[in-house]
């Protein structure tokens, strides 16, 4: 029977029902089984998704359908089981089925599945794990449903049915796992079916806000709640006003919290001003976040930590609102956001003199412990603000620059400095050159401090004591290295501790961005210093450790990756300093080549890859290319200047007709410098002209005839002027005829003039020799360019021109 059936290979579709049945009998629990083996479940799920077991095959309809039917029956039976663990298995398998099954099956049964899941959520008897699983499965069901275009309305009404029950659950149950499941489901709905929130918007906002303000919420959940809250305005018509309202509420709430937190640490007017800006006295202030009930409980006021985590969550919410995509115009309150950040960053825990008696030491201690978190959130908010408005920051840019530079001066914590460097990069990228000129000094002076090898202990110092490190670099470098080495010997440092490089990486990236955006403009004061600094940093980061990077690898330790990242960052910045335009030739080009060359062969794969790229970029520096101009093979080629010389001789008398500028201009011709080109040109150009003619490109020929060279132009120019006057009566007719026959428009006239001029010059004999010349040209074409025939090419051209003229 079945056991004798053979299959083609592992991809044979007939395998699918078999495997599914096996899974069902061996791994998926059934009702009679007393215990559930959870371990086997992940195998079931992975097998199903690898083999696509639930996608029903059209060809093997009956077999695969019956197997999937069995599968569905099984999990439905499990879902309705009394045992919570079995019911749980049924529910999660239903979720997996929503993802994997065929669209026909999904479409015909999603409604039933949905209702059974919903009943689990609504049932007060259900255990927590079942509710969590139900939320997840409903989320998957709705996700699948959103891909069916024709059921939008029904999907929205289904989604709407879940919202109130889960909000109710959230208020009743205080389990974080459940909250998380609920927030995930809500986020799915707000992304896919924002219209479902139509009637429950305020309730949802209130519930979520109250959870954010709850003292019990953990920080990770806080972030998820804040994220959802940020998406919520999409649900309320998704328009500009609802976004602005939410932003206003958030900012007011943040400032209210800060008023309390900063009591005694800042002037009281600061808070008042901020509130005035957000809710101007004349206008109605919005309800506080989370409705009237959202006013804070007293317990919160006493815990500094609680306030800071809340404010951070709210700031995160603002950041998400700023960066997530909305389909409407956004009115971003930049001034309020920037002044909020300014307000937070202004408080560094020190007490203003006037305030000191009002604050106890303990209070100050508590505040200071939490301030770094707060500053970090504020900086993140600043970054997203810049990111979201990009170039439109312009009117505020100057104040942001001042804020950043003043904070750079007082900021010592590495985490915060990293954030500052990130902000600097964002500013440079969004505002370009103008910003680079403003920020350059700040970036350079701070990065020099952070990259200074003397100030850092650990492996960098170790590597510079390494004799190998001293070998390659120039004399200045050697001096530097030995100095640090001496110092290092005196200091009590830990040998080879792979310390955290992230601050240095951030500083390097900021310098790199600065060099890319504005390395050449107004950079005299700092460029030399930076080039040297980057050369040394790259040298220190890499020397003696190319090979070592690999040996660290057996440790699943972050520090190895960190080292590689640091090396890449240092090399990137170094490359930028070599390539970025500067006045002089790059001072450390030799060091650069050596470093990249070694890195390419010895470095870790990622480093080696970058070194190869760097060598390629530097190749252009040592072999500067005169780019072949797009389409124009080269300047000389198309404009035979010998013609012009010839015509210069012929036409000199005519010069009198030109205006003064022409004279002046022809008088200054620098003939000798062009001699080299001329020789090539002589032989090539007639061929090209001939080819063109054959294609019927009269225009091109005419152009080059009339404007080959200055002298030539003058010649033909004059001829034109003379000719036009002479030939006015007849030429329009002729050229009209031509226009109708060919596609060319304007230049016909010029063309004609030139031709007529040559006719006058050459006499009637020209006509006779036409055929002959044409043959010659053909021959030439077949010959090589080396044809050194110095027959004035102008002649040939003219014959050809007249040739085609007559033909037409």
């Amino acid at each position, binding site marked *: 029977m079945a056991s004798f059936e053979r299959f083609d290979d592992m991809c044979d579709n007939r395998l699918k029902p078999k495997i599914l049945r096996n899974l069902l009998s061996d791994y998926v629990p059934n009702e009679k089984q007393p215990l559930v083996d959870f371990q086997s479940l992940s195998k079931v799920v992975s097998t199903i*998704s690898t083999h696509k077991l639930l996608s029903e095959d059209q060809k093997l309809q009956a077999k695969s359908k019956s197997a999937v039917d069995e599968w569905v029956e099984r999990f439905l039976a499990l879902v309705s089981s009394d045992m919570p663990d079995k019911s749980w298995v049924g529910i999660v398998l239903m*979720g*997996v089925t*929503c*993802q994997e099954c065929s669209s026909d099956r999904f479409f015909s049964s999603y409604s039933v599945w949905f209702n059974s899941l919903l009943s689990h959520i609504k049932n007060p008897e259900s255990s927590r794990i079942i509710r969590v699983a139900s939320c*997840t499965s409903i*989320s*998957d069901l709705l*996700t699948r449903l*959103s891909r069916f275009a024709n059921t939008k309305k029904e999907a929205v009404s289904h989604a709407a049915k879940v919202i109130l029950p889960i909000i109710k659950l959230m208020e009743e149950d205080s389990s974080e796992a459940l909250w998380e499941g609920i927030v995930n489901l809500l986020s799915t709905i707000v*992304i*896919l079916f924002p219209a479902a929130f139509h009637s429950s918007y305020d309730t949802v906002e209130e519930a979520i806000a109250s959870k954010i303000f709850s003292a019990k919420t953990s920080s990770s959940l806080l972030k998820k709640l804040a994220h959802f809250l940020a998406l919520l305005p999409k649900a309320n018509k998704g328009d500009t006003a609802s976004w602005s309202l939410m932003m206003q509420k958030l900012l007011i709430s943040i400032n209210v919290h800060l008023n309390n937190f900063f009591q005694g640490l800042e002037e009281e007017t600061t808070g008042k001003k901020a509130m005035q*800006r957000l809710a101007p006295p004349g206008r109605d202030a919005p309800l506080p976040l989370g409705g009237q009930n959202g006013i804070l409980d007293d317990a919160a006021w006493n815990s500094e930590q609680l306030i800071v985590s809340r404010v951070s969550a709210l700031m995160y919410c603002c950041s998400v609102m700023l960066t997530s995509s*909305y*389909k409407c*115009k*956004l009115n*971003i309150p930049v*001034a309020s956001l920037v002044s909020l950040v300014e307000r937070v960053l202004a408080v560094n825990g020190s007490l203003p003199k006037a305030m000191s008696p009002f604050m106890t030491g303990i209070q100050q201690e508590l505040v200071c412990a939490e301030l770094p978190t707060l500053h970090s959130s504020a900086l993140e908010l600043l970054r997203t603000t810049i990111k979201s*408005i990009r*170039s*439109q*920051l312009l*009117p505020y*840019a*100057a104040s942001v*620059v001042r804020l950043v530079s003043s904070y750079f001066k007082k900021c010592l914590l590495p985490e915060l400095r990293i954030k500052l460097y990130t902000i600097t990069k964002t500013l440079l990228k969004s*505002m*370009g*050159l*103008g910003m680079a*000129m403003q920020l350059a000094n700040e970036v350079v002076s701070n990065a020099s401090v952070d990259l200074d090898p003397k100030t850092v202990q650990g492996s960098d110092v170790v590597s510079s004591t390494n004799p190998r490190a001293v070998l390659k670099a120039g004399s200045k470098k050697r001096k530097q290295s030995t100095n640090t080495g001496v110092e290092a010997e005196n200091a009590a440092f830990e040998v080879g501790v792979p310390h955290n490089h992230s601050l240095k990486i951030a500083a390097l990236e900021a310098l790199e961005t600065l060099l890319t955006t*504005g390395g*050449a*403009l107004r950079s005299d004061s700092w460029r030399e210093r930076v080039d040297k600094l980057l050369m040394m940093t790259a040298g220190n980061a890499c020397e003696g450790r190319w090979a070592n990077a690999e040996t660290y690898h057996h440790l699943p330790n972050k520090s190895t990756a960190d080292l590689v990242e640091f090396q890449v960052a240092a090399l990137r910045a170094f490359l930028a300093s070599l390539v970025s*335009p500067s006045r002089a030739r790059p001072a450390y080009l030799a060091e650069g080549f050596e470093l990249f060359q070694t890195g390419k062969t010895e470095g870790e794969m990622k480093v080696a890859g970058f070194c190869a790229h760097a060598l390629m970029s530097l190749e252009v520096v040592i072999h500067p290319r*005169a780019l072949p*101009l*797009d389409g124009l093979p080269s*300047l000389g080629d*198309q*404009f035979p200047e010998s013609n012009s010389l010839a015509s210069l001789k012929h036409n000199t008398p005519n010069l009198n007709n030109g205006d003064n*500028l022409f004279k002046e201009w022809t008088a200054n011709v*620098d003939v000798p*410098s*062009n001699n080299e080109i001329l020789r090539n040109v002589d032989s090539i150009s007639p061929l090209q002209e001939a080819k063109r003619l054959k294609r019927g*490109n009269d225009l*091109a020929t005419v*152009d080059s005839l009339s*404007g080959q*060279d*200055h002298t030539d*132009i*003058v010649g033909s120019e004059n001829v034109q002027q003379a000719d036009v006057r002479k030939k006015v009566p007849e030429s329009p007719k002729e050229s009209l005829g031509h226009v109708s026959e060919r*596609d*060319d*428009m*304007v*230049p016909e*006239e010029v063309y004609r003039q030139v031709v007529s001029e040559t006719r006058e010059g050459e006499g009637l004999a020209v006509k006779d020799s036409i055929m002959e010349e044409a043959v010659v040209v053909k021959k030439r074409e077949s010959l090589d360019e080396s044809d050194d025939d110095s027959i004035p090419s102008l002649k040939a051209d003219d014959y050809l021109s007249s040739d085609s003229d007559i033909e037409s």
Partner: protein
Amino acid sequence: MEISVIASSSIDGGIGSWDIKTGTEQLRFKQCASPAHGLAAVGEKFLAASQLRNASGSSGSIFFWSWNKPQVEVRSFPVESVKALAANSEGTYIVGGGASGDIFLWEVASGKLLKKWHGHYRSVTCLVFSGDDSLLVSGSEDGSVRVWSLLRLFDDLQRQQQGSTLYEHDFNEHTTSVTDIVIDYGGCNAFIVSASGDGTCKVWSLSKGKLLRNIIFPAAINALALDPGGSIFYAASVDSKIYVGAMNSSSDYATQSLGSVSEQGKAVTCLAYCADGNLLISGSEDGVICVWDPKSRRLVRTFSHGKGPVNNIQVVRRTVVGNSNKAQSSWKKNGSSLPPPPLEKYERSGDNTVDGIVIVDPPPLSDVPVYSSYHSADLINEQVRELQQQGSAATEIEMERLKLEYKKSLQMNDQWQKNYENLLQVVMEEELNGSSS
């Protein structure tokens, strides 16, 4: 993506637009007679053009057209006649150069005049944004070319402290009016090429702030276009020719010409380069627009704008959503139902200058479907992982806690039992005593 050529004229011929690929004429926007450099496409949002006719004597006028309506939608009347107009690539700011030499900077979304400064001694003839939109280069009738950092213009504080000039560079070598300016892709080391009625084109270095080359042409130059290759540019001259200028040639004289647009010697007035297909587009005084293939120097096609001289050409790339023939206004497509407000006449003074709101348009094509991911499989895996990690810290700690609690409860139990027994004994004794007494 739709690429079209738009052109306007100094006499009222409207703004013509043509599809560059097919050559078909598109919508003609009515009522436009703009000066040279007075036509600008504001991002993908709309078209703007300053007007030569003066509605009311002294004031100038700037009109906006939405992309699919021929009628003027918004009319603004700045304090003076605006000659040159330009918008940054995002279409968030419009700058205008006035006849008095003043330069105006408006915010498009609000219409606010954010900044007005005295740029030149005489009328501003052209305005160009640098590649990253952070610098503005202006040319004037007085022959000067100036480079402005927009950011620094707004930084009043720093300027007061340092007392330096408003501009970054001031190039004063042209003897007559500057007619056109182009800036190449060099970033901070870009070259600026300026053309002038004095028959020269000058190449300036942005980073060094000085003249690199002076190239002399046989006639006055009206317009410039850069070849993306960088080292050559095309110059449209009054003698009806388009010359090729080389930035790195040894000669100071540019002589090669790409072609001539008219037999009557009508001046070529404007140029534009279309990167898609590498085409050069020229407009001339006789109202003809020629599309050239600079590679072969062939004329690819011509458009006729009308009798009036063409003085502005722009290549506009636009993402076309849906059917452009629909009567739906492009403002609606961008997710807002209103056209932009007219540009304001005066700078707001005092604190009112900045009300702190920046209006950000939704990203184009924000109609892309949203996707959410599936979670069930993750839930299972997480559950299984939790079960497998029975020896994990969390369960261990929990176990210890329970053990401790259990021990405590046992002790408590003993305690209670003892208490109970003691109490019982006391009661019993009392009872016994009571009964005995």
